[in-house]
């Protein structure tokens, strides 16, 4: 007997969930709001900690998903999740025996931190912009010059009450280290400074990569948050911070300022939470039933979660959760028979 399971969101978590379901003989329907699957990874260049091209990971996953025969529908945004299934923004209702929510996260809008001048000064970029520049193989200043001095600022839109984001986005520290190394490889004579509040290297090999950035690539780490950025007459960016480890103010001018933007809860979360079985954490990420044995479960027996919809996670963690969620769906369906 073939059950129908709807997977909401076609990022890596949704793709892996659909794939794992299909491998178990359960017929999934993957719904993705944009015109293509892959989620945020479609915008990344190389992945920490191994510098594996994101396209390689996505390519492999897409090929396996295709072979599995799982049904994928793009341009299909889910508005509501109810007991019977889901409702799309165009009004269509789709029935399902179970739903796995994999709608991911949103990128923090750096314009909200106006003091850093994103969208105002041409040489202020976000980490996502930098990934796009790496992908286009064109990392140059707005004037088309090779940058000789670059600053990366950690915690932009994370751990910051002023923008209503108290949580730590987890992946931006290691992204900052990874991007600093990539920039140094591209421009070996450039001076690169990472401005951090805490360095959070949570994954295997991350701490080692941080040390490599310091020792082998000579990347400078300054503990202190940039308080403001301003533009010089030649469109460079002047930044001010406190070098908190020596207790003195610090200022410098850079050719490029990269803002390591955080992960924001997905904008669909609020609408999904109109269903009383879907709870939100104070951060507005979706709150799983618990953090241990039911970390992919909602308050309803047939709604499950996987990936960054519940909290900031890296690729490996998101994929693992997808497999766990598929496993839970299978358990639920067989218990019901």
């Amino acid at each position, binding site marked *: 007997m073939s059950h129908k399971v709807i997977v909401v969101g076609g990022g890596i978590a949704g793709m892996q969930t659909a794939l794992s379901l299909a491998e178990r003989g359960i017929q999934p329907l993957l719904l993705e709001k944009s015109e293509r699957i892959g989620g945020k990874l479609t915008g990344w260049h190389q992945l920490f900690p191994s510098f594996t091209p994101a396209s390689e990971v996505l390519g492999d996953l897409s090929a396996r998903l295709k072979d599995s025969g799982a049904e994928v529908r793009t341009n299909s945004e889910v508005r509501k999740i109810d007991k019977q299934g889901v409702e799309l923004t165009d009004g269509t209702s789709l029935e399902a025996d179970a739903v796995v929510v994999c709608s991911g996260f949103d990128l923090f809008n750096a314009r909200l931190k106006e003091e850093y001048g994103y969208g105002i000064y041409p040489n202020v970029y976000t980490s996502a912009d930098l990934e796009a520049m790496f992908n286009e193989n064109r990392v140059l200043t707005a004037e088309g010059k090779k940058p000789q001095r670059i600053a990366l600022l950690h915690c932009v839109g994370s751990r910051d009450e002023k923008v209503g984001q108290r949580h730590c986005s987890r992946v931006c520290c290691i992204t900052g280290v990874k991007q600093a190394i990539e920039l140094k490889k591209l421009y070996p004579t450039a001076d690169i400074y990472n401005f951090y509040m805490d360095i959070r290297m949570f994954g295997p090999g991350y701490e080692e990569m941080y040390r490599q950035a*310091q020792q082998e690539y000579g990347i*400078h780490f300054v503990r202190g948050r940039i308080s403001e950025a301003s533009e010089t007459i030649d469109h460079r960016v002047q930044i001010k911070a406190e*070098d908190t*480890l020596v207790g003195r103010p*610090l200022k*410098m001018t850079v050719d490029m300022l990269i803002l390591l933007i955080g992960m924001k809860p997905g904008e669909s979360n609020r609408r999904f939470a109109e269903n009383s079985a879907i709870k939100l954490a104070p951060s507005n990420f979706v709150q799983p039933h618990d953090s241990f044995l039911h970390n992919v479960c909602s308050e309803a027996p047939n709604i499950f979660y996987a990936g960054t919809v519940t909290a900031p996670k890296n690729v490996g963690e998101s994929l693992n959760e997808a497999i766990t969620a598929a496993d839970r769906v299978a358990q639920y369906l067989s218990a019901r028979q």
Partner: protein
Amino acid sequence: MIQWGFNINQPRAINLDKNDRLVADRILEQMPELEACIACGSCTATCTAGNLTSFNFRKVHTLVRRGEYKGAYEEMNKCMLCGKCRLVCPRGINTRGVVLLIKQELGDY
């Protein structure tokens, strides 16, 4: 001269546009592991000299790495080269060697 009680303060900011990083880079070239310092303060906590004087080894070498050399040589003279700091550094930095290197590079600064 009459002292009015007013004076002009020198700017306190570390200005990385003005600082000459040449010596800092030379030091780091000879001892790249110094850049791997995680500012844990173990060296300063255990330092024989630091417990008796205002000498703060971690702070001085951090300033040197920013190109702030003024007074660093004199500060490093407070070190007694006992090597205790090297026993505790979690990053395995030859901290005692750092003292000698900074003194050697900044001797006539």
